[in-house]
């Protein structure tokens, strides 16, 4: 069987599985729709959180990005895992104890303010839409490459499938589909990684092969990373493992970006909501542990893939005559993701750190998708990667749709516009908004706004500078007041958004010499977060203290014990 037949088989099987799960777990109450009836066991929720969290970006793009960044790729590896420590210690058990349905609802109750809740709901909607656009695009790209259909047809297929299982099954359907999707995506990630690791280093465990020696070829017996550093030096590129070398990000910027991503992770609404679905505060703690265990399986493998792919790419292509390039080069050339421009007219590919002399253009995204072909793995593994990429994109998209739907129908609809709405109507509204959100997300996928890649900085920056401080202060202090929290959130968001807009859109050519403190727009969320904390604490000193009911609420959520 060829790659395409295998892909149809895997995609067909996994999609039927997802639909089947959705039909079996359909819901009829708002509690079922928003938080899966709070009956998800810790282990299953950990898996679902893993799939919810690991998006098309983690699965398809991250290893490729790291492959081109070397050491600096650390910002994603630490940034997108370290946040779970904050989540587990500072937020998850308390938000679960609080109960109810959304994160914004907690802000509204803790700061006894409809305004705080609305700010939260609007941030949720904005963050989630920026995120979802990338997911739908990812679905389209996978479909177009592996099934040779039009990108837009691929997006429509993805929309259709999410529409069914998100609106019918709500959070319960999404959770159990995410469990299945986690299994698909992790197998799809680890199998080719193990095969490549074994091929290059003779060790099938990528985390060990990464630090092992090259088993054949000109560099046999040499450490893989040492080989990679040498290859980079020969091409005039900064050393792969080098940290603060010219051509890479500065220490202060790496520090700030890692911080913004970590704190942003802990403040993303679609991740926070997952901890509402377990039975207890205790289960929330264990669930955070399982989530990070499942996530780290992929995240410790990714940098190994990056290094293997980098060695393969350089050795397969650099100095090779164009007519001798491997077949995979031509199959990806047609997608426009890789290209060769013969600048010196010698018919050979020259890869170089000097942009004038460099003749090879490689899109970061193909490193994971093309890796199995580059390593000449069998057709079924290539097809498995396609199914895994789809699982990663769809699971994240579904989680995002649900928080958009609950922000609109619950935080804005039920609590603000139509407080007298019955549960049945609210459930109908929730399903309706989920359906509309799928369509809007699909349109983003078909007509991607040019700024999609850049707005990811927005999503994390805003989550870091808005939700995180307000939630932490709300749980760990009783002295933070309504106006303290609101002023903190608005100044955090205001500062972060202005900085990002200025340096991304108004003056995008400005570099590290004009950035404040040398911090790029990607990392400015760290500063926004500190500003939010500072403003909230200061303003709280000068405004009316929170009423007694708030103190009781805070004391209540700090203890796992159930009220009786």
């Amino acid at each position, binding site marked *: 069987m060829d790659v395409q037949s295998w892909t149809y088989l895997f995609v067909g099987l996994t999609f039927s599985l997802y639909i089947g799960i959705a039909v079996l777990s359909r819901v009829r109450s708002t509690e079922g729709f928003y938080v899966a009836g709070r009956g998800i*066991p*810790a282990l299953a929720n950990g898996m679902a959180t893993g799939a919810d969290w690991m998006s098309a970006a983690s699965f398809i793009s991250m290893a490729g990005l*790291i492959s081109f960044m070397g*050491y600096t*790729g*650390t910002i994603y*590896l*630490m940034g997108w*895992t*370290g946040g*779970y*420590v904050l989540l*587990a*210690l*500072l937020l998850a*058990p308390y938000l679960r104890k609080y109960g109810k349905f959304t994160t914004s609802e907690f802000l509204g109750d803790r700061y006894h303010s409809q305004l705080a809740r609305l700010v939260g709901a609007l941030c949720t909607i904005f963050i989630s839409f920026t995120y979802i656009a990338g997911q739908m695009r990812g679905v389209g790209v996978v479909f177009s490459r592996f099934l040779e259909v039009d990108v837009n047809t691929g997006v429509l297929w993805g929309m259709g499938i999410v529409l069914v299982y998100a609106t019918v099954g709500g959070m319960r359907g999404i959770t159990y589909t995410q469990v299945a999707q986690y299994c698909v995506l992790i197998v799809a990630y680890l199998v080719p990684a193990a095969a490549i690791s074994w091929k290059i280093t003779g060790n099938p465990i990528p*985390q*060990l092969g*990464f*630090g*092992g*020696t090259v088993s054949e070829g000109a560099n046999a017996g040499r*450490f*893989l*990373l*040492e080989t990679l550093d040498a290859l980079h030096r020969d091409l005039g590129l900064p050393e792969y*493992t080098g*940290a*603060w070398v010219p051509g890479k990000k500065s*220490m202060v910027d*790496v*520090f700030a970006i*890692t*911080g913004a991503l*970590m704190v942003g992770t802990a403040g993303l609404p679609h991740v926070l909501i997952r901890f509402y679905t*377990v*039975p*207890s*505060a*205790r*289960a929330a*703690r*264990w669930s*955070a*542990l399982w989530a*990070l*265990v499942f996530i*780290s399986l992929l*995240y*410790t493998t990714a*940098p190994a893939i990056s290094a293997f792919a980098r060695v393969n790419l350089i050795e397969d292509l650099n100095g090779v005559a164009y007519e001798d390039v491997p077949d995979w080069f031509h199959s990806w050339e047609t997608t426009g993701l890789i290209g060769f421009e013969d600048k010196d007219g010698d018919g050979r590919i020259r890869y170089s750190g000097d942009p004038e002399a460099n003749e090879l253009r490689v899109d970061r995204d193909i490193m994971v998708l093309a890796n199995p072909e580059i390593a000449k793995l069998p057709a079924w593994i290539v097809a498995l990667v396609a199914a895994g990429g789809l699982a990663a994109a769809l699971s994240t998209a579904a989680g995002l749709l649900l928080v958009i739907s609950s922000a609109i129908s619950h935080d804005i609809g039920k609590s603000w516009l139509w407080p007298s709405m019955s549960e049945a109507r609210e459930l109908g509204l929730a399903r309706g908004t989920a359906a509309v959100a799928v369509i809007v997300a699909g349109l983003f996928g078909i007509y991607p706004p040019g700024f999609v890649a850049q707005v990811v900085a927005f999503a994390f920056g805003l989550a870091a500078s808005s939700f995180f401080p307000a939630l932490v202060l709300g749980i760990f202090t009783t002295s933070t007041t309504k106006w303290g929290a609101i002023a903190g959130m608005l100044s955090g968001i205001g500062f972060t958004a202005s900085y990002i807009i200025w340096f991304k859109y108004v003056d995008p050519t400005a570099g590290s010499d004009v950035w404040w403190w040398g911090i790029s727009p990607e990392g400015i969320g760290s500063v926004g977060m500190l500003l939010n904390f500072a403003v909230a604490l200061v303003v709280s000193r000068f405004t009316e203290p929170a009423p007694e009911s708030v103190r009781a609420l805070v*004391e209540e959520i*700090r*203890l*796992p*014990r*159930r009220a009786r």
Partner: protein
Amino acid sequence: MAADPKGYWRANLRLMAVLLVVWFFASYGLGILWVEPLNQFMLGGFPLGFWFAQQGSIYVFVVLIAIYAVCMDRLDRRYGVGEDSQDGSDPARSEP
């Protein structure tokens, strides 16, 4: 035993502080601030600082949450604030 919410909260904050210091040290410290000096040492084929940045810190995060989950279960029991188990996996029913 009698429930002691204040003692529970103090013990929780202490545990959290210790874990967060380790969290900061292992990620920002070993993986970023001191990455170059550490890179002079090798761990197998890894420069040590690079290993902490791309592998070690993630393992440390997992261990930290594991310690937290286990210790908090103990604190729940010791201070008598644990909940009635509904997930079927809590052997400790310590409430009075």
